[in-house]
């Protein structure tokens, strides 16, 4: 049978145990609950399996089949071949959590390097070696703020993704954290500073700000925001798109305490939204309250440099109910992809990538707004995503684009009723000038109908 070598020596092994029948090993399962009918299909050969999957995949269109400018925090990025070449080394991907450090030096060192690079690009002192995704990273950050400050209110902008709000509200239930929202400025798309000033108080454990925010807009008052947060004695949590950090100040440069973000864009494919990579970094003073695995550098018995999991007493396998988080399995292989990807870019490539994404974003905005009926909804500086207001029905527009084999933007009014017929578009280095031209031409065609 498949992948079960001892099928053929079953009776021999049973004999060693003094048994005749494999059922004898299951006598402790009460008769009443033994399965009578197991209604799954018969197995398939590897060849049949591959054929079946080929049929299924024909029903999908990847970004290579359909021109797409979808935003919403996830976009296709170019992944150099070197990434898969390393992540498909089965010494890496068939290993588990490096509990036995002497047999896991390779993965441990790679994770140490990942932490170093994440700390470097975010400007933080320390990073863990991944959480599930950027969204759960935010939730863990809110819990951490409460643990550190003992306060029970967490402030976040109104304009973050609805998924983030929903997940955060679930994680907040445990410790009973109250969530307060601050609105955005209708013109700029940035958060409303006056409202932050009003809402922040002695009970505020932390304030979350995204830069760039969900609308793709940079919060260029970020230093000021940081000051407001610090003056109130709260912790400053910043959400980032790692791709933007090649050209913008890192959160460390404006005194963030905790930095979170979705790291998928660093060398990992979109994969229909999963797997993902939760980035989590913070200042050294909060290290012992951090969730998740952290790899440290130490020495072996002979004094030679060695790596191992550090500060394990924060974790569930040691501290159980008192752990800083319940996370065990994380997104290690995605973190490996990220460190290989960042190595491949180097600081020069990282700067150029960041710059290209910014420039493409400007180009896209220019091309779209040149068409009648399309306007930028906000006038703040945007990165590689932008909110466009359409003068007609946005959903209808997407349908018409789809007929031309183009995937339109994310329709926002479901989550932001005030943003009627607004679409969130995204672009990255994979989009060529021809792609933008074709897209703009189609928008023009469709909007004229």
């Amino acid at each position, binding site marked *: 049978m498949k992948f079960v070598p001892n099928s053929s020596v079953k009776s021999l092994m049973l004999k060693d145990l003094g048994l005749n029948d494999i059922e004898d090993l299951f006598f402790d399962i009460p008769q009443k609950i033994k399965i009578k009918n197991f209604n799954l299909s*018969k197995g398939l050969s590897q060849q049949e399996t591959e054929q079946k999957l080929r049929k299924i995949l024909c029903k999908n*269109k990847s970004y290579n089949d359909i021109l797409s400018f979808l935003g919403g925090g996830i976009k296709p990025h170019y992944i150099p071949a070197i990434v898969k070449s*390393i992540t498909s080394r089965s010494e890496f991907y068939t290993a588990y959590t490096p509990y036995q450090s002497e*047999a896991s030096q390779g993965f441990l060192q790679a994770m140490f*390097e990942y932490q*170093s690079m994440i700390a470097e690009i975010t400007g933080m002192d320390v990073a863990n070696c991944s959480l599930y995704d950027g969204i759960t990273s935010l939730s863990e950050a809110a819990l951490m703020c409460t643990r550190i400050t003992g306060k029970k209110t967490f402030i976040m902008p109104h304009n973050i993704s609805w998924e983030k709000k929903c997940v955060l509200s679930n994680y907040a239930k445990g410790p009973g954290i109250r969530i307060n929202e601050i609105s955005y400025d209708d013109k700029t798309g940035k958060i409303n500073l006056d409202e932050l000033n009003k809402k922040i108080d002695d009970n505020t454990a932390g304030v979350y700000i995204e830069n760039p925010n969900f609308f793709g807009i940079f919060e260029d008052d970020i230093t000021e925001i940081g000051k407001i947060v610090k003056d109130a004695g709260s912790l400053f949590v910043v959400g980032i798109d790692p791709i933007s950090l090649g050209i913008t100040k890192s959160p460390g440069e404006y005194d963030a305490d905790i930095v979170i973000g979705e790291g998928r864009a660093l060398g990992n494919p979109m994969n229909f939204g999963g*797997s993902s990579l939760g980035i989590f970094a913070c200042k050294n003073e909060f290290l012992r309250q951090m969730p998740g695995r952290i790899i*440290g550098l130490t020495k*072996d018995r002979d004094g030679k440099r060695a790596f191992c999991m550090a500060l394990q007493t924060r974790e569930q396998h040691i501290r159980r109910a008192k752990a800083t988080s319940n996370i065990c399995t994380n997104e290690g292989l995605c973190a490996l992809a990220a460190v290989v990807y960042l190595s491949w870019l180097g*600081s020069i490539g990282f700067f150029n990538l960041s710059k290209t994404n910014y420039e493409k974003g400007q180009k896209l905005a220019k091309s779209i707004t040149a068409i009648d009926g399309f306007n930028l909804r906000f006038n703040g500086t945007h990165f590689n995503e932008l909110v466009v207001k359409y003068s007609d029905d946005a959903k209808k527009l997407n349908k018409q684009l789809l007929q031309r084999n183009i995937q339109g933007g994310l329709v926002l009014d479901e989550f932001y009723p005030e943003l009627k017929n607004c679409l969130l578009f995204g672009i990255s280095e994979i989009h060529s000038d021809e792609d933008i031209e074709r897209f703009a031409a189609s928008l023009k065609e469709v909007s004229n109908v």
Partner: protein
Amino acid sequence: MYRSAVYDEPLLNELESPKKEKINIFTELPDSLKKKRNIKIPNLDETQIIRHFHRLSQMNYGIDSGIYPLGSCTMKYNPKICEEIASWDKFTGTHPCQDISTVQGNLQIMFELERMLCEITGMDYFSLQPAAGAHGEFLGMLLTRAYHEDKNEVNRDEVILPDTSHGTNPASVTTAGYKLIEIPSNKDGTVDLRILKETLSEKTACFMLTNPNTLGIFESDILKISKLVHDAGALLYYDGANINAIMGKARPGDMGFDIVHLNLHKTFATPHGGGGPGSGPVGVKIKLEKFLPTPRIGRTKEGVYLFDYDAPESVGKIRGHYGNFSVLLKAYIYIIMMGRDGLKEASEIAVLNSNYMKKKILDSKQYEMPYKDIRKHEFVISCEKLKKDKGIRAMDVAKRLLDYGFHPPTTYFPLIIKEALMIEPPETESKKDLDRYIDALIKIAQEDSENVKGAPNNTPVKRVDEVNASKNPILTWKMI
């Protein structure tokens, strides 16, 4: 004896950067955002990078290197065909917010996987959203709360666990804001019905159980347990980490469990990835269906798959989008390939392997195994005798196994066994490898104790000072 590749591989930032860079400032940004210093990531050649990570990979032990009998982790062979198919860009290149007409293949896979998991577990509905087992447990606790709140039983704020539970269980319970009550196991190593009965009350929200439990013992009283829990108005939660023992044999749904999580990266052969990504789908009985996360996956009469967000009583979401799709896809491929007979045989041989190893090891009289004799897919031996006789601890045995070229078992867990080694030899291991592992364990017990305590010797580094790593944390290049 085994020899691992050994390199004194420098850190990336210690490699020589062939390219020199000038300060790069992007002038178009507003001054308050402008980055004024360069990020310090070395600019290396592709060959340097490949060799670096290639060498690192050679200093890492995975299932493809050899047997990896980490208890409760089900380190089974990861079929290559799953990796291959899951890397096709028709899957990897899809955006989660694409028009659903362009991702019908993905939706079909998720729709069918949910149904297959229902059949394997005997549950009515599944959510594929959780990213790992612990994440599934957290969702289970949210569902538990939603269920009791719906019935207006808001005072149920306690969750009961046996003292053999996985570390994630108590952590998930407290993360979700429940009070934890841990109950001691009985002399068989199973749930003590009397104590359970005394502990259950109108305050109990849920009883979490792994079956077979972490000692590898099937809780034969499960129907009685289920009755006690339900009579008290509480829910019964199944930690599916150990379901590799019973596929095609028994189903948690038939045992009376209300909520189940599975670990696709364990039982369904998706790789552990050096720590993840995993996937921890959660199944429920019909009475909990309306609380499951959104979106649910539906299918119209015409056979069109869709996302259904119309669930007013849903707990909402616990992560972005729909789950770790790449992992779901691999598990789907594994299940259709194995089929009903394949999965059943996988469990049978996993249990056979475990009992075979257990008998041979115990016959040697070097190790002891407290509690009931019959075990399922894993068993836990104690090195207490070795410790008393020769001062050799479970950790020493584990490290010495590395010298023999084997990955050690889980150590010091569950906590109720002293000097524990928790061994899980999945069905994908051959008798020959099991025999070699058994021989190594016996030999180690007979070796000179200094030899064992000095292990490992053949790994890239010798015994690592983990205490120092926590006392004086060096966690980045900068901190060196």
